[in-house]
């Protein structure tokens, strides 16, 4: 199983029946297909749709119906459309149960950086800064290391922050961490990863939950 597969398979377990969920652009979007069919889950798209359906058949394509990644989509049963102010009232007001977002860096205090790299062209934060402050639970998914093999799980973020102390759960291809009052806590190792390997690969300090030892 690829690292990405491991991440997605673990991430989907965060989604419970009945939840309203926002999946970030990119890798998080792929989680949609893995949600158990028997679940009643409403996916929110911050441009103004609660109840994202599958991609349309070619004959169903509608330029007036896109998701936050600007992809053509459909709406599922019981969906609703609304304007952008309403959409972020939902998000900021804590009415979205869960947001799953991609990350560039996560710090041991739960800071998240995922919107810009200094020196590179700035694209903008879109709705990410609103989501990390508003959704009830923030799950970040990302590769544990960058392409140079350096830890993306840091003592403190080097990239500009998206939010400070906002991450509840971090899921990487190596492990799953929760951020609690105790600090950053390892709660699961991905299959085939040892605690020693993880410590080697991680710049952040973390505590190890009893169940993992």
């Amino acid at each position, binding site marked *: 199983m690829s690292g990405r597969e491991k991440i997605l398979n673990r991430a989907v377990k965060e989604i419970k029946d009945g939840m309203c969920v926002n999946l970030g652009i990119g890798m998080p979007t792929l989680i949609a297909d893995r949600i158990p069919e028997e679940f009643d889950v409403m996916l929110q*798209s*911050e*441009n*103004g*749709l609660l109840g994202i359906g*599958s*991609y*349309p*058949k*070619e*004959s169903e*394509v*509608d*330029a*007036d*119906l*896109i*998701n936050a*990644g*600007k*992809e*053509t*989509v459909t*709406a599922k049963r019981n969906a609703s*459309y*609304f*304007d*952008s*102010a309403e*959409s*972020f009232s939902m*998000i*900021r007001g804590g009415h979205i149960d869960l947001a799953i977002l991609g990350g560039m860096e996560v710090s041991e205090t739960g*800071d998240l950086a995922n919107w810009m790299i200094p020196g590179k*062209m*700035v*694209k*903008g*934060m*879109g*709705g*990410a*800064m*609103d989501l990390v*402050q*508003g959704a009830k639970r923030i799950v970040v998914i990302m590769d544990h290391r960058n392409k140079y093999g350096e830890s993306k799980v840091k003592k403190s973020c080097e990239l*500009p*922050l*998206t*939010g*400070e*102390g906002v991450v509840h759960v971090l899921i990487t291809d190596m492990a799953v961490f929760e951020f609690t009052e105790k600090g950053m806590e390892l709660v699961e190792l991905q299959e085939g990863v040892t605690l020693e390997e993880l410590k080697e690969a991680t710049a952040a300090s973390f505590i190890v939950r009893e169940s993992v030892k």
Partner: protein
Amino acid sequence: MSKIITSLDEVLEQVQDGASIAVGGFGLCGIPEKLIIALQEKGTKELTVYSNNCGVDDWGLGLLLQNKQIKKMVASYVGENKTFEKQFLSGELEVELVPQGTLAERLRAGGAGIPGFYTATGVGTEVAKGKEHKEFDGKTYILERGIVADFAFVKAWKADPFGNLVFRKTARNFNPTVATAGKITIVEVEELVGAGELDPDEIHTPGVYVQHVYEGKTYEKRIERLTTRKEA
């Protein structure tokens, strides 16, 4: 006292160099195509534009960029546009990046007579720099300002002669919010209906916010990312 106009040129006469305009749309979805093209043709310069995105190189607000009509862009995401990148890096274009929800709320606040509000969005980030911080119930928030623009450019699906508006699917997006935030709000629609033809319970934007309504023909409605699944 119909608000219907049959040409955009006349009403755009009011838009002078240096004007600020709030523009509806998300990506290329629900953008006021005709108004943007008419403003490109008019060539008004030194504009400040409030809009979630800035179009692509050859469509939407990208047309005004190409034509160097925009002095300052206030947006949440501008990633799909090489012209933008060039003008930004050369310093020609001033850019204020605003979180999407904060941008929506600032426009809504401006339209609702709220000069400022507090939000947790952006606390601890670059967005918070220079802004007033305040604690409420032990949590820190920053003060954000309402936006009122000289003009609002809106794209709706249907309108009646009073300017009551109905939007379609996710083409609604920033449009109703922007409609409230313009001192003069100009709306283009796909279909103009007769007086009384819209159900008062189903109107998304009451006509009180609208000064001018224009019926556009043959909307292009470009799609940025065509994604489909196989036909069954």
